[in-house]
């Protein structure tokens, strides 16, 4: 069998098809703000400005085969800082789509295949019946062992529930106890919620693999599942790209969705403001310091400032205003951590850590002991670069800290707490 080669794309022609009327990649002033602000600059001897220039010069063969497209996380920071608002990530997506499947990073392709392999749409291939079993099993254990939650529910396929809650597969698959703090929060605020046995999973590597058809199929399954249960809100839990792929996908593929897409962060903030989630920072007697990582997928690429503000409000409520240190830059100007775009699955560890150095420096500059982030990829990447560059910080989910503050964090739910936080319980 002959090995497949990567076809050559005509980038300039494609760019003209993609852009709205009047916009042009030729508007690029070559100022370099994009490259200057991109953590992937220099990897594989490429950067965003070079990419655009090469496209405009017709260097299609070189671009079509550049491995850099797998190091670009499509975080759109280049567009954010560009005075002409040029969107390079669109070309990167095209380039990814253009690679034959055999040539693409196997980890991303495999994750997409697993998503397609069951009705769960889980990138770890966890089938619906296993998900239902794990949820039930963990719930029973909590009810038995934590008397305060002996009546707690984790509804499955409940028609007409207000919230359709998604779940990153990592929890039911590898760390099921991490689901419990979330359930406790729903229990305390009295949320009318449900899981679905179908299309419950959050992650979507099909978009990252550049497989548009598969991306569409996944979104279709998820939209159908929410419509079927008649929920008003698809509630995205602490996972960044699941939100973006769903929101962007619904628009891109013109699907009919009878519900709103919302992020859990918005609800944390709302429930705290409404007094339904009575958290405070009294537990933080030792003034342990925290910073937050703004996931690109829900901040810069989606909600923008409003969710960034909610995240800070929640953090300050949890840890005390004086113990919160913002990263610089932050909010929509924040850097991608390097865990996005499928980078964690792409098997390019050295490049990924080079990319992540910028994030590591940002965190180091805050001097904070912990990073809070509502995104699994951010979480994993920030942990990894912390070990690699010998940082001393920890990474925690919001749900963990909320339950810690409320004094309801069970013993099995403390995986991400360092000794200092454990002492605060």
């Amino acid at each position, binding site marked *: 069998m002959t090995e497949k080669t990567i076809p050559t794309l005509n980038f300039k022609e494609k760019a003209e098809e993609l852009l709205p009327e009047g916009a042009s990649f030729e508007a690029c002033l070559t100022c370099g703000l994009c490259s200057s602000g991109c953590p992937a600059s220099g990897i594989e001897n490429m950067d965003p400005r070079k990419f655009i220039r090469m496209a405009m010069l017709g260097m299609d063969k070189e671009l079509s085969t550049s491995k850099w497209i797998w190091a670009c996380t499509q975080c759109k920071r280049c567009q954010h800082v560009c005075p002409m608002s040029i969107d390079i990530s669109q070309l990167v997506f095209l380039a990814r789509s253009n690679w034959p499947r055999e040539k693409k990073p196997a980890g991303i392709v495999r994750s997409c295949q697993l998503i397609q392999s069951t009705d769960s749409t889980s990138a770890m291939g966890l089938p619906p019946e296993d998900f239902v079993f794990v949820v039930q099993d963990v719930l029973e254990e909590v009810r038995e062992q934590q008397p305060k939650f002996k009546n707690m529910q984790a509804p499955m396929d409940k028609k007409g529930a207000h919230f359709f809650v998604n779940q990153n597969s990592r929890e039911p698959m590898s760390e099921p106890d991490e689901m419990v703090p979330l359930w406790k929060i729903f229990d305390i605020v009295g949320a009318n919620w449900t899981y679905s046995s179908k299309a419950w999973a959050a992650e979507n590597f099909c978009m990252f693999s550049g497989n548009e058809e598969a991306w569409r199929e996944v979104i279709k399954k998820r939209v159908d599942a929410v419509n079927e249960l008649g929920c008003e809100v698809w509630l995205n839990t602490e996972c960044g790209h699941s939100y973006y792929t769903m929101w962007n996908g619904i628009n891109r593929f013109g699907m009919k969705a009878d519900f709103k897409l919302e992020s859990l962060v918005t609800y944390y903030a709302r429930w705290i403001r409404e007094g339904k989630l009575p958290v405070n920072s009294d537990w933080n007697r030792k003034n342990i310091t925290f910073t937050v990582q703004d996931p690109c997928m829900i901040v810069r690429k989606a909600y923008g400032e409003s969710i960034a*503000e909610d995240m800070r409000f929640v953090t300050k409520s949890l840890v005390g205003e004086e113990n919160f240190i913002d990263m610089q830059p932050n909010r929509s100007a924040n850097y991608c951590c390097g865990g996005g775009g499928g980078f964690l699955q792409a098997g390019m560890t050295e490049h990924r850590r080079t990319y992540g150095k910028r994030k590591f420096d940002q965190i180091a500059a805050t001097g904070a002991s912990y990073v809070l982030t509502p995104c699994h990829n951010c979480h994993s990447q920030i942990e990894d670069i912390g070990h690699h560059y010998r940082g001393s910080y920890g990474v925690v989910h919001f749900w963990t800290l909320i339950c810690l503050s409320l004094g309801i964090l069970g013993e099995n739910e403390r995986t991400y707490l360092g000794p200092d936080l454990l002492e605060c319980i």
Partner: protein
Amino acid sequence: MCMSEEDRHFSAELAVIGTGLAGFAASIFALKRNIKTAQVGNTGAVAYTTGYLDLLGSLAPDYLASIEDPWQGIEQLRDSHPRHPLCRIPKDDIFTAFEQFTSFLGKCGIAYTPPGEFNVSGLTPAGTLKPTLCVPATMQVGSAAFSQKEPCVIIDFKGLKGFSSRQVVANLKDRWPKLSSKRVEFPDMVSGEIYPEVMARSLEVPATREKLAKILASAAGDVKVIGLPAILGMHAPDLVREELEQLTGLQIFEIPTMPPSVPGIRLREMFEQLFPQKGVTLIPQQKVDRLVFIENGAQLSLNDSFGPISIHAKSVILATGRFLSGGLKAGVDGVSEPLLKLPVTQPDSRREWYREKYTDRRGHAVNSAGIEVDSSFRPLDNHGRPYSKNLFAAGVILAHQDWIRGRCGAGVAIATAYKAVEEVEKLLK
């Protein structure tokens, strides 16, 4: 799109359109006067600034020598170019505008020298001198060292483009004999091209400062003053400089680099972070699609990726800049103002836009094109009447100035924004 979503509405006393220097200055002055403000604009060109805030550095029509006294320069302009925007604002107001603007920046973490009676000489990456009224504190030592002709080493970094210490020295050596150059390696940067922005952020980490301090101390040798490209931190530049001075025992200053230059990114990031905290409704990265004037105010419409946004404002300041930012548009039929179709004062035909030589010191007629305003800085319509009593304009969209040749970009932006906000306040009362 069938997904449920909500339209977003905001209301404000003042809507500032534009997020360049004039737009940000307008919001600062509005904050000072407790005017409820919303500001909209795409990324704009703030990130390209050197950080220097010039008032007036060179005089029309020939723009020959740099001028030392910008205030006297404005007096001269009043005779020769009375329609220049700076001539329409009293000196005391221009001075106050610069004072308020620089003190705001200082309070927000980027210290500047206050406005004085004379221009100072700012150093440029080309080794030339730029006459400017205020300089960031991180650059102040450079201007002083130049005027004293102190022994000094300009240091650049391997892999950094857009700043060459040899170039700086080559062009200044005649006037600054004890100036020399050195090239060093920045700590922990992988090989290849490195950017000032990346170095600046890396210097916010104490460990990087310690490593760089050793390198700098060794490069300086016996010399006590060193100049670096502008890389001394992003959001706490004064602290980074102070610490490096303590660690090295040297006096350290910055010189702006070619764009994208750190001082511009510092300003933009600071505005974007602080304005919302101070109560300004800031919608960056978006352009206004439509602006219509209704009774007692205006309605702004725009769209972001989530759908429509509308803003109702009692007054509007148009600070949309020139060609780069989209405030003016150049077409085959001439220069136009795209948002309101305001008439644009311009040469009669395209053939008169440019002189024969691009580098002609006298500049080009198209660069003085722009919109007309009345004495209250209200843009005029085709009949020479104010377009609306609720509309004002500020910045380099105004006609009768060539900010590049005149070295007066910040001056026009800050002074006219001050004046426009003053007029807005009168209107609101």
